[in-house]
């Protein structure tokens, strides 16, 4: 069982919450565009429950997305929301956060949006350690455009643009984020929703750049071409493949082949956060001007 994840069965019956996640949703815009069984809604719901836990204020929270099925989430969220352009959500978010450090800024992105076209912005956002929480919905494909290969399709995966099998390796996005300087890095799946919710919640409270990879299923475009087929089978597959970081530590690379290591993977509180250090610089300049 992954770290921080209680099995879906083991959870304590909960006390009724005063609010449901509908509080943060434009329910009038439902039904949403996502296909039946698509995990994007599950991940979005996990984020919203984290938001409820933290009591995020609608008018002090800005959610920025790029373009893709995953990025469409912002069209249903009752926060300040920016549906930006493909790959550039983090650049928009950087402007928003630097201009208004008091806002809680969340970025929702896909594996194509965040790791292909937006890969450069991703590593630089990690490096800057700006207090932004990025949730990358990794469904191993370009869902919105019809199932083309993404950097996360993986060796041997099939896609409309890899009809004979993809022959490029993928990123380990979490290791990429860590190496680039993100100070909170975690991975969850749309099966381990409680763990995911907790990881997202802690990512939002972490004062620095948080990167959370949410591995999820695209039954329509990825599942159609890659076994197992069907949302239920894909979800069960995620369950089987997920392994907690603790457990993974004792395992060899061979044993870890094809597994999804979940949980908090990296956290560093020693690196200064950018808006804070920028504010200190302004203060220094102001003082020296006064003298």
């Amino acid at each position, binding site marked *: 069982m992954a770290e921080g994840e209680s*099995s*879906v*069965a*083991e*959870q*304590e*019956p*909960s006390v*009724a919450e005063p609010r*449901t*996640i*509908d509080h943060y*949703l434009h*329910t009038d815009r*439902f*039904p*949403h565009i*996502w*296909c*039946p*069984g*698509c*995990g*994007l*809604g*599950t991940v979005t*719901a*996990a984020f919203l*429950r984290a938001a409820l836990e933290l009591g995020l204020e609608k008018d002090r929270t800005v959610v920025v997305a790029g373009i893709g099925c995953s990025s469409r989430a912002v069209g249903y969220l009752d926060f300040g929301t920016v549906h930006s352009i493909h790959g550039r959500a983090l650049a928009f978010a950087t402007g928003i956060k630097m201009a208004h450090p008091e806002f809680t800024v969340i970025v929702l992105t896909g594996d194509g949006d965040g790791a292909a076209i937006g890969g450069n912005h991703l590593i630089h956002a990690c490096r800057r350690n700006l207090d932004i929480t990025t949730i990358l919905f990794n469904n191993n494909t370009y869902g919105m455009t019809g199932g083309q290969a993404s950097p996360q399709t993986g060796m041997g995966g099939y896609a409309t643009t890899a009809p004979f099998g993809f022959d490029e390796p993928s990123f380990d996005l979490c290791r990429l984020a860590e190496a680039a300087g993100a100070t909170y890095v975690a991975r969850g799946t*749309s*099966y381990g*929703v*409680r763990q995911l*919710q907790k990881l997202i919640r802690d990512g939002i409270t972490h004062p620095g750049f948080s990167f959370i990879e949410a591995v999820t299923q695209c*039954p329509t475009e990825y599942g159609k071409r890659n076994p197992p087929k069907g*949302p*239920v089978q894909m*979800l*069960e597959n995620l369950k089987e493949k997920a392994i907690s970081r603790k457990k993974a530590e004792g395992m060899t690379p061979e044993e870890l082949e094809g597994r999804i290591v979940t949980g908090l993977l990296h956290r560093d509180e020693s690196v200064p956060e950018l808006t804070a250090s920028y504010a200190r610089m302004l203060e220094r300049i102001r003082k020296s001007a006064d003298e």
Partner: protein
Amino acid sequence: MKSTPSKQRVRSTPRFDSARCKNCGLCACVCPVASIEVPASEVPILLEPDKCTSCRSCEFICPDFAVTMAKA
């Protein structure tokens, strides 16, 4: 399982919103007591409400925001 609430209380069970449900079957797949059935192109049914442990798994997994927990 940690819980056997000392005080008798009314347990919540899932309600399925027919306007939102897309009939994907994920709720049934995660139900630990196999108590949900999803008939083709229909809203899921809670077969044995008494077996339901109010674990909220179906609510949390639902990608369509279609499940809410409510007291019987």
